[in-house]
């Protein structure tokens, strides 16, 4: 029995690790300036935990193998160093890993969430609702109009509850269903929710943050590669949660300017 267990555990471990190593199912390529640090952190963690995983499971399998079918009276052999060596090893090895990962990881985290957006970033206001994302650009006047929840009317496309009749700044706000941004430019998002909790997740940016009703959550990034990427909701928000998505469209600067002009004209 012990031998069978040992073989099975070893096989499972090796097959599992193989899929990790071969990147059979893997993250999409990173397109964010802050994403590289996250990927690096992931690789470090994979290696560190991979070693622990392999060592732990193999040790278990090994000891199970050894414990089966042996002659009696093997009491004499105890794990070298006894409990003390284990406690010390655990504290030292795991402690070092923790220390390293925290130190490096906090930089990756801080770059995304603890640094302010660069001055001069392109500002976009993002609203999440059941079950869509809408994006608002300030328009030529560079100013966002005020939001009035009582004026929200999805039917006429007034998703944000703007009041252009009385609010000058709101008149030229551009509201669209995609997040269109120029490449290599810092973007500063402000996230708010119309109804319940949602989340903003772009895998290629290596970023995720919740929309909290009642709060305006900042998020900033710089995309380094043109393309079309999914923005998906990851915070359970109701029956349409599975289908709640929008697209991040990263364009070249001229293409973006063209797009902006078209939108402003409307």
């Amino acid at each position, binding site marked *: 029995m012990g031998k069978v267990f040992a073989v099975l555990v070893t096989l499972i471990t090796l097959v599992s690790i193989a899929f990790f190593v071969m990147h059979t199912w*893997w993250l999409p390529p990173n397109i964010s300036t802050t994403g590289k640090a996250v990927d690096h952190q992931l690789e470090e963690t994979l290696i560190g935990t991979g070693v622990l995983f392999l060592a732990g499971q193999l040790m278990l399998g090994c000891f199970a193998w050894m414990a089966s079918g042996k002659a009696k009276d093997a009491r004499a052999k105890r*794990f070298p160093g006894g409990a003390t060596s284990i406690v010390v090893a655990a504290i030292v090895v795991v402690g070092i890993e923790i220390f390293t990962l925290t130190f490096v990881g906090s930089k990756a985290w801080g770059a995304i969430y603890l640094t302010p957006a660069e001055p001069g970033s392109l500002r976009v206001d993002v609203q999440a609702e059941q079950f869509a994302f809408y994006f608002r650009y300030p328009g030529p006047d560079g100013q966002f109009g005020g939001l009035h929840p009582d004026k929200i009317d999805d039917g006429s496309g007034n998703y944000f509850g703007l009041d252009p009749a009385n609010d000058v700044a709101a008149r030229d706000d551009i509201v669209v269903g995609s997040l269109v941004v120029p490449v290599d430019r810092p973007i500063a998002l402000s996230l708010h929710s119309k109804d*319940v909790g949602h989340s903003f997740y772009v895998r290629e940016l290596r970023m*995720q943050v919740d*929309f909290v009703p*009642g*709060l305006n959550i900042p998020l900033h990034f710089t995309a380094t590669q043109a393309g079309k990427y*999914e923005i998906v909701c990851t915070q359970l928000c109701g029956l349409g949660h599975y289908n709640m998505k929008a697209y991040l469209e990263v364009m070249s600067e001229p293409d973006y300017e063209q797009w902006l002009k078209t939108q402003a004209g409307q």
Partner: protein
Amino acid sequence: MNYSPTQLGSDSMHEVSTHPVAHQHTAPTGFIRKYVFSLDHKVIGKQYYGLALVSVFIGMVLSWLLRIHLAYPDYHIPFLSKLSAAGAPGGVMTPEYYLSLLTMHGTLMVFFVLTNAPFAAFGNYFLPIQIGAEDMAFPRFNMMSFWTTFAAFVVMMASFFVADGPPISGWTAYAPLSAVGRDAGPGLALGQDLWAISIAIFCIASLLGALNFIATTLDLRARGMSLMRMPYSTWAWFVTSVIALLAFAVLLPACVLLILDRVAGTSFFIPAGLVLSDRLQPHSGGSPLLWQHLFWFFGHPEVYIAILPSIGIVATILPVFTRRPLLGPKALIGSMVAIGFLSYMVWGHHMFVSGMNPFSANIFSIPTLIITIPATIMTLLLTASLYGAKMRFDTPALFCLGFISVFISGGISGFYLAQPSLDTYLHATYFVVAHFHFVMAVASLFGVFAGTYFWFPKMFGRMMSESLGRWHFWLTFLGVYCVFMPMHYLGLVGNVRRYSAFVDDYLAPLLPVHRFITIAALLTGAAQLIFLWNLIWSRFRGPVASENPWEATSLEWSTTSPPPFDNFGGKHPVVNHGPNELGVDGPDGTDFLMQTAAPKSS
């Protein structure tokens, strides 16, 4: 204190009651007193186990329904439309019904299985016996806590039968989705109210239970049963009950506040200006994050409530089959206590990307990573205790080995999620689902399986079938890896969780992986029927068990199988050893000393 001769026991050699014993209660008569409203902790333990068994099968069937829907969205599931015509017309679930079943799956499993089985069921049955007591400190409270749990179960199941069905907000019931009421969408009306009420009732039941465990452990230990001589399972139940006492005491007011937001128009969790179903909601000023903080302050200790008893059970069982003491008893117990303590400092790691101040992510990450140290110590102690042993590979031992393997797997994935910089990618993906299923659904459950095979002879006086047990183990062990290991890969791709369908370009190509998981889940689930059959058949036809078939040392093995009504037949055990006397020279050529054996001659 003087004992006059007339106060001393009878002249029977077996009746050494050397002073008038304050029996908790006399032996019950009548069916109701004996099997229904029983004050006997053993009956109550079995009742909890039965409730957990029913809950786990319902929860498992729910998971089959979910998995089938994900992998074969167009398949018409037979009988599903009978359960809910609105939720599954023609046997195909609506998106909201998927979320309803998901919510109930999580709720039943976390509360009614993982808090009930390893903790309430086995703890109730064996804690008093393992410390040498006749019963729990407060038998009437004990009975009340089971029936209150049962009431919570009934209320929870009632949500299946109300018009809108069970709630769709997940077992975590985040506000404001769970708090605004009907306007938030289908499934959030009466079903959510019933959920909140049920959980509040469950909190009260758990608080009563935890109080009983703590008082019993502190006050009712037999002579010679010092704290350090208690078996590991008792220690685990004790630490768990302290965690539970403080954790459920926080969930209860949280549920009350949620209910008030829903029915009384308060705004604890609902801010101003929300527009749902085209209606501006009349609330203002509340904080959704407040719900998350309150919930996870309970929620994280809750998962340690789910795992610690299983760790204790495995630590108790493993030495019996290696025939030698566990390495580092003090380190093991210390680790359990450390985990209990640290479990209260880490709740924010569920909220790294919740919109709370990002700086606090760093603060929560540190104790989260530190908690891996006692967990690693325990895992290594269990593993290293195998070194050099000759093991008996009965089914309880197999599940202990399996436990170690799956606990390693589950713990490792926690390492990723504990780091905010990785959680920013992995949060709310299948990576998280893989992690918590490995540690809770698999590891904790393996502890329950090990405990069942180990203690069944004591509880019912019969052995379970060893061959069926082995089939159960191998199929389950292989099966759970097939089900949950692929979920890590899905998480790395960015497969978001709690989705009722994978319709977009990005996720649709992952369907083959989901199909593999579904088939593995169905097969592994089917393998559990072997366990169920084994339980039922052995209860009536299993070979009769002796008092101590496994040659174990703790106090439950020094009494009959099953134990008499007052556990020790009028005797009061006196403890002279810890539970670790294995691999020593015992009486009659055996290799162990029971805890009640005579002290080693000096």
